[in-house]
């Protein structure tokens, strides 16, 4: 049987708010993606779980209420909810977290689903980092260890932001390929 698209699932929920099967399937797909987008805003693991649940609950409620103008663009809608919730939490707004009290156990389980990726091999990664050209290695360290943004790195290395972005992109592409065993 052909798998229904995210948009088709969203339309099914909007058309029949009691359709739990569509809700479960949409949540199973969206939860790991929300987790990835949410990681960019929330570092704490339990807070990230809360964020995923909050975004899923908000999305389902809006779909059930027919409040999503274009169910076909459900990904855009969810991305917007995720950004707004994360931004609100950063401002200290925790009101929406009361939604979590009403979260069904099944939804809590679904919200913890992660994308399947192999664990990183620490020793392999260390070798891959050592194999980078010196400047690329420095840019990677400045980005992820010193947590500097591109403009600050450019100033520190006496180069342009564009150059930093190119070096960083090349370095991460190399590391990504290297840890996966596809040398570049």
């Amino acid at each position, binding site marked *: 049987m052909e798998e229904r698209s995210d948009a088709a699932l969203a339309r099914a929920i909007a058309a029949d708010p009691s359709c739990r099967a569509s809700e479960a399937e949409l949540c199973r797909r969206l939860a790991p993606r929300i987790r990835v987008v949410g990681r960019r805003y929330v570092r704490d693991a339990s807070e990230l779980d809360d964020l995923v649940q909050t975004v899923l609950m908000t999305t389902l409620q809006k779909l059930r209420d027919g409040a999503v103008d274009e169910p076909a663009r459900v990904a855009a809608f969810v991305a917007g909810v*995720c950004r707004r919730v994360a931004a609100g939490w950063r401002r200290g707004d925790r009101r929406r977290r009361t939604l979590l009290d009403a979260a069904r156990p099944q939804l809590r389980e679904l919200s913890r689903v992660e994308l399947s990726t192999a664990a990183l091999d620490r020793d392999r990664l260390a070798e891959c980092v050592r194999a980078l050209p010196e400047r690329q290695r*420095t840019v990677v360290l400045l980005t992820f260890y010193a947590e500097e943004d591109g403009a600050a790195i450019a100033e520190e290395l006496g180069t342009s932001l564009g150059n930093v972005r190119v070096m960083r992109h090349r370095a991460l592409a190399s590391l990504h390929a290297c840890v996966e065993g596809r040398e570049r």
Partner: protein
Amino acid sequence: MIALARLVDWVTGDAAEDEVAEVEQHVMGCDACARTADRLMDLGDAVAALARDGALRHAATPSVLARMDADGLDVRRYDVRPGEAVECQATPTQAYAITWLRADLSGVASVDVEVAAEGGPVLDTVRDVPFDRREGAVVLVEDGDSIRALPRIDLRLTMRGRDASGEERELGTYLLRHSPAA
């Protein structure tokens, strides 16, 4: 599938506001892109952990040194001028040795550092090393395990610089006399 460069900019926080929205919309509908973005964030976290654990050798800049200080890493510091020699060794718990190689870097566009056994072969050449022109130094950070694995050895470091026209000149030589910890 979204271009890797766009995901990298998004992960590292260097994407413009409208670009952030576009990338996030795309990731929210694309498992392959979400998986790649997740991997990039894993890589970033893992690189930071390696740096904190004293597992990486690298050339440092002021921000990286400040982070190492903030993390309270167990380090030894050496400050060497051209023509000078310094005694060095690594203690059992030492995460890193940090060596400031001083030089007159005026007019220099790029720097290479050659490492050789004193009176012996070249062991390594580190090309295009970041340098601090204001401080007049290249800062090399060596991980403790690599140093502890060394036998008693004298290492001759030679720093060479190139100006914008590509003309090369020697900026200094430095002798690191390494002895294993007792």
